[in-house]
């Protein structure tokens, strides 16, 4: 916040008010925190006297002046203290980071009224205070306030407020303190104080020292550099270290810190390198050559490709453009002359390179969103200004630059009426201009000249957003849509609801499963190796094999869920899913996403006829009647003797059956599992939607029972069909009431008993009529091999 406040004067306001307001103007605050807020009751003290502890060879008894009352006696085990040192003193009842409480006590019999703290105990490191040591008491240097009794966080500058913003990808300009300061100034209607860097120079012209040329102006818009000689590498001053730390950047030395500082302040990545390692004093911004390699600062050897842009000297790449420098280009102890580089690269190019090299850096993260080429030179000047300010070296005059960037501001007509209509606001041109001016827009008549750091402003809709976010999204009224549109569900959507509702009534619960599976799942359901269904849509970058292909059948997903329920010791599970199956077409075309109803169950004494009954009742409810059913031993996932295939007009509608015991075993289910699947769109196409009333019968029905004897192999359905054929239109209902094999029945035969209801719609059936019909029925039955059981 201190850094931000350097550029915009914000009245004292509670942090909550600040974060709320700036969030509502578009810079969302994710969180904020005051540094050192965990530290309580720790103050600056001075060591008045040091004595050895009488009963210890390493403890010291210190008398500490904390600016109030009698000196405090504190025992410490540290060996780095000297008389008159200024130190952090955790008083009695103080609090340190991590919730550590300090109370007075005795150490080997000697009273100790608190604790002297190390850097670590305050939550700091040597990077924050390079002159202090890690394993000893933090002795405050000259860059700290030595006022006795002063709260330690204030005295050492560990009391800034850190705010974390969510920056959207269209606003790379806000990846900088200045960018956020501009937003804050516009939000709170305050002046933005920008600073123009001033460099004294006077150490000779640097332009002859380096020959720079951009060979790929589409990928690098500007490359600028300045040279600093007689570099004096040392720690940065406390104010700079403090600001870097607050931004989560570790202070290293003045040169590195300056590059980071400028990057954070201006949003412009900077690079500093040793002039000695630039062969022939030549810089070329070019694509890498095939086979070229570079060892980057992180010590990794990297192969480069011809797509990747590099900064090269006469012979070799010295940096991967916009991503990371090479190891020899860094700052060494004996570095005397450095080059500060400030350049702007094509965002996509940096993004691709960083991705392909597998290293995203602070610099690449900024570049890839598209930076403003016109920010390069001010940032370079700022770096040199800081060099002089920190006495880090002698800045030479002149700028080495190859510039292919456009300085032109994009023009957008300010269409006040359109914007007011679009937003439903009533703002004047002046009000709009005032807002835009705060965002650094200029005007040429009614044309807006957009600053080059805002490439996201292209269209009047973008301008409308700028205006409304500072006007206040929530000041715009809410209105209802005009026109009486009729919302409705399509017949297919209603049909799907009907399927679900019927399944609920039949006792099955809805599940939702992943659409991607492992290719191994096809083995688990015994799909033959040459099955065309094995050809699936393959995900090129899956999370893992388990989710690597799009299922062509949804059955494995159901079995997976049944298996999970079984393993979780649920006694029974009756489930269904309206699942998609993804059937590939051609390589460059989308697959067919086929809707399938998958039903699966185990437990509660389920058997084949439970699942078949569910399927039949569903079909009945959906008014799908004209289907055929036949036994099938060809369904690889099902029990060959307990499986039926449903067809309509010869086309496969679905399968009902008991899951093959091997499949159940593959899923670890030690019980019989029953499933059926139905093609939803075939159901939809074959559902009879128009229903007409049939008058209730006026004449009585005649009932006859038939006990038949036939070969065991003859399906009952054949007998039923024979009865239907024989009875003709007088048949009202057939009900199977017994199938019997065993005693009194010849081996290989079975007895089948039906109850047949006949009725005529226009008269009472006479015995004679009935007998005639039953005779025909018997004739048909005999044709299929059934006789009356005597």
């Amino acid at each position, binding site marked *: 916040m201190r850094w931000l406040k350097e550029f915009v004067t914000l009245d004292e306001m509670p942090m909550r008010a600040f974060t709320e307001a700036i969030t509502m*103007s578009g810079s969302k605050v994710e969180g904020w925190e005051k540094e050192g807020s965990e530290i309580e009751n720790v103050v600056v003290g001075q060591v008045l006297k040091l004595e050895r502890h009488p009963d210890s060879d390493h403890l010291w008894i210190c008398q500490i002046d904390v600016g109030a009352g009698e000196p405090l006696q504190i025992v410490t085990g540290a060996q780095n203290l000297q008389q008159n040192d200024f130190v952090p003193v955790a008083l009695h009842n103080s609090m340190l980071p991590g919730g550590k409480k300090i109370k007075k006590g005795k150490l080997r019999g000697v009273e100790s009224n608190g604790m002297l703290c190390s850097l670590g105990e305050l939550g700091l490191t040597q990077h924050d205070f390079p002159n202090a040591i890690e394993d000893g008491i933090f002795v405050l240097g000259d860059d700290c306030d030595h006022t006795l009794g002063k709260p330690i966080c204030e005295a050492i500058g560990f009391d800034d407020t850190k705010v974390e913003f969510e920056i959207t990808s269209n606003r790379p300009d806000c990846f900088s303190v200045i960018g956020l300061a501009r937003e804050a100034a516009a939000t709170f209607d305050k002046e933005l104080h920008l600073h123009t860097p001033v460099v004294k120079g006077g150490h000779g012209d640097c332009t002859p020292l380096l020959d720079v040329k951009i060979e790929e102006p589409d990928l690098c818009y500007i490359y600028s550099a300045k040279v600093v000689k007689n570099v004096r590498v040392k720690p940065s001053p406390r104010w700079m270290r403090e600001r870097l730390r607050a931004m989560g950047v570790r202070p290293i030395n003045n040169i590195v810190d300056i590059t980071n500082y400028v990057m954070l302040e201006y949003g412009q990545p900077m690079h500093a390198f040793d002039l000695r390692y630039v062969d022939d004093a030549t810089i070329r911004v070019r694509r890498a050559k095939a086979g070229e390699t570079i060892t980057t600062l992180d010590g990794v050897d990297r192969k480069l490709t011809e797509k990747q842009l590099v900064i090269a000297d006469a012979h070799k790449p010295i940096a991967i453009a916009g991503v990371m420098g090479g190891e020899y280009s860094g700052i060494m102890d004996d570095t005397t002359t450095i080059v500060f580089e400030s350049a702007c690269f094509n965002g996509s190019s940096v993004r691709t390179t960083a991705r392909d090299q597998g290293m995203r850096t602070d610099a690449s993260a900024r570049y890839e969103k598209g930076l403003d080429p016109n920010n390069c030179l001010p940032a370079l000047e700022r770096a040199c200004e800081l060099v002089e300010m920190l006495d880090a070296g002698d800045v030479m005059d002149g700028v080495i630059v190859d510039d292919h960037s456009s300085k032109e501001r994009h023009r957008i007509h300010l269409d006040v009426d359109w914007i007011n209509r*679009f*937003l*439903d606001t009533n703002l004047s041109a002046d009000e709009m201009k005032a807002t835009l001016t705060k965002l650094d827009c200029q005007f040429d008549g009614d044309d807006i000249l957009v600053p080059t750091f805002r490439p996201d402003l292209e269209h009047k809709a973008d301008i409308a957003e700028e205006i409304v*976010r500072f006007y206040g999204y929530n000041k715009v009224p809410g209105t209802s849509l005009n026109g009486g*549109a009729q919302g409705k569900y399509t017949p297919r959507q209603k049909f799907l609801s009907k399927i679900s509702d019927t399944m609920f009534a039949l006792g099955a619960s809805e599940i*939702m499963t992943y659409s991607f599976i492992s290719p191994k799942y096809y083995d688990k359901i015994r799909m033959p190796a040459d099955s065309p269904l094995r050809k699936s849509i393959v995900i090129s*970058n899956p999370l893992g094999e388990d989710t690597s292909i799009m299922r062509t059948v949804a059955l494995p997903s159901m079995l997976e869920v049944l298996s999970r329920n079984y393993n979780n010791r649920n006694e029974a599970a009756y489930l269904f899913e309206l699942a998609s199956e993804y059937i590939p077409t051609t390589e460059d075309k989308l697959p067919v996403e086929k809707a399938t109803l998958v039903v699966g169950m185990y437990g509660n004494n389920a058997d084949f006829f439970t699942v078949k009954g569910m399927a039949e009742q569903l079909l009945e409810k959906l008014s799908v009647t004209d289907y055929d059913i036949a036994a099938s031993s060809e369904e690889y996932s099902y029990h060959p003797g307990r499986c039926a295939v449903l067809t309509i007009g010869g086309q496969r509608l679905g399968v009902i059956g008991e899951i093959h015991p091997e499949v159940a075993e593959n899923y670890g289910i030690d019980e019989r599992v029953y499933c059926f699947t139905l093609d939803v769109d075939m159901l939809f196409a074959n559902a009879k939607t128009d229903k007409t009333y049939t008058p209730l019968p006026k004449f009585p029905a005649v009932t006859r029972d038939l006990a038949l004897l036939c070969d065991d192999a003859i399906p009952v359905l054949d007998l039923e069909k024979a009865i239907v054929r024989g009875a003709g239109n007088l048949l009202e209902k057939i009900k199977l009431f017994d199938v019997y094999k065993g005693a009194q029945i010849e081996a290989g035969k079975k007895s089948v008993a039906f109850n047949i209801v006949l009725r005529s719609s226009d008269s009472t059936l006479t015995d004679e009529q009935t007998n005639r019909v039953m005779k025909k029925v018997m004739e048909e039955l005999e044709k299929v091999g059934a006789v009356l059981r005597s």
Partner: protein
Amino acid sequence: MKQKLEEIRANAARELAEASDSQALESLRVKYLGKKGEVTSILKQMGKLSPEERPVIGELANKVRAFIEDDLTKRAAELKAQATQKRLEEERLDVTLPGKHRELGVKHPLSIVLDEIKEIFVGMGFDIVEGPEVEYDYYNFEALNIPKDHPARDTQDTFYINENILLRTQTSPVQVRVMEKQKPPIRIISPGRVYRSDAVDATHSPLFHQIEGLVVDKGITFADLKGTLETFVKRLYGEDSVVRFRPHHFPFTEPSAEVDVQCFNCHGEGCRLCKGEGWIEILGCGMVHPKVLSNCGIDPEVYSGFALGMGLERVVMRRYNIDDLRLFYENDVRFLKQFG
């Protein structure tokens, strides 16, 4: 004979009073009134009587008969009442024993809330359309103003099938498909599955559901967007919910907003549920970007519109206080049965 009749009457009255069930009553009826019954046989003997006696005895016999019949009826009614009473007493049940349950299936919690959301939008005049999950890069990104190498692609880690085909990362491609096919006015929502390569944990899933919304017509304003979504949020979360629109960025809308609803728990004070913010983000929206309209062949100078997108899982998790996203896709029946 007269005396005989009086005797019969007395006997019948006594025996009837003693009869304890309908069978006994029936045998008494036969005994007295049956074809060979005592009263009947008296009547049969009438022929032997003198003409003077005949009417007297006849009348008496008929009286006795009527008397017995009447007694029979009364006694039958009494016995029936007694039997009923007895049966009712015997049939007393412990009505606190549990009822017999027919197994009912339940809707998946995601479907429950999704159906509710659909109802709200259908009520506001929206149709429901679906789009493919395996989608062209063009519809998922390019037509939505997200060209190749656009930084926004970073935030949506995409599963690719090949260079041009992917698993959609959002339901927004349906916007483009609808606009290509249908001329305004357009008012649709499109719920469905979307995919992002996030490893599975309590709050991430590589597959989740979104609901897309799109309105395009002449004169659609930012205020219409606000009004429509305010109505939606109030229908979903209750009339007293407080909604705010916060500027955000989506490549395919401009201006863009995220919609927050004030935390139901702390009413904006900030608590653990809303991570101290006082607000809970529920959806993203914005005015359809003019480039997107042009890409679909709709003239942005004539038409405008708004779009919205929301994640379903988070809404459902908050509704039922579910703390682990994985439960939705594990489908343990003990989980599913809690919501139906």
